[in-house]
């Protein structure tokens, strides 16, 4: 995880395109400038970054299901709950499922667990847009490689 670059996801653990589910891991760093302010003496992951992490997990799921033909962009956050804090050094396991495929939009439900315990969950809505340019597409391809996106899952 590189918080300053919004690289929230470290590894795709399991992508099931047919079942429209994904599990990813995100290792919260021990140190970050973000923790210097949030909060001095009691560092913890900001709730908005937990939501961003669930959105990115949902994003990888959609890139898989839609075979990189569309780029999902977060449009709405519903029913988001931060049930417990996430602290520096903790490993987040994030699961997401695609709950609805609309025309030009999609909806997911996502959960963050640490050590098996639920820390946050949300229902998210995304708009699906064509990749706006080649730079963004190549950027996503590079990140896909870094997080171990299973190309074989969408090659059949």
């Amino acid at each position, binding site marked *: 995880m590189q918080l300053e670059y919004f690289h929230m996801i470290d590894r795709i653990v399991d992508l099931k395109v047919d079942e429209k589910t994904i599990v990813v891991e995100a290792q919260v760093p021990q140190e970050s400038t973000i923790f210097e302010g949030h909060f001095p003496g009691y560092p913890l992951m900001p709730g908005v970054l937990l939501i961003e992490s669930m959105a990115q997990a949902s994003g990888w799921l959609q890139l898989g299901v839609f075979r990189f033909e569309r780029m999902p962009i977060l449009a709405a956050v519903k029913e988001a709950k931060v049930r417990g804090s996430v602290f520096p050094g903790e490993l987040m396991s994030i699961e997401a499922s695609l709950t609805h495929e609309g*025309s030009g939009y999609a909806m997911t439900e996502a959960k963050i667990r640490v050590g098996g315990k639920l820390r946050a969950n949300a229902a998210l809505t995304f708009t699906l847009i064509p990749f706006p340019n080649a730079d963004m597409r190549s950027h996503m391809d590079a990140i896909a490689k870094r997080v171990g996106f299973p190309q074989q899952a969408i090659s059949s």
Partner: protein
Amino acid sequence: MSSTFDQVATIIAETCDIPRDTITPDSHAIDDLGIDSLDFLDIAFAIDKQFGIKLPLEKWTQEVNDGKATTEQYFVLKNLCARIDELVAAKGASA
């Protein structure tokens, strides 16, 4: 069973917090009811679920942007309901 319009009007009223009695078959979802594109996604989702269809929003938007259709053809509620009925009928025919 309530009409397509009654069901759609109820969805719009509940989703966008618009008084039900202000929604008529001649209401334009965007121009008259002030529904923006993001709120319309919630309406589309509810319609998709309720009628078991997939509103082709991307196709409609493209047609409007290309000047091949007007927003009135898709977003005046009586026209929207006619499209929904067509999609439901097409789904039934292909089942």
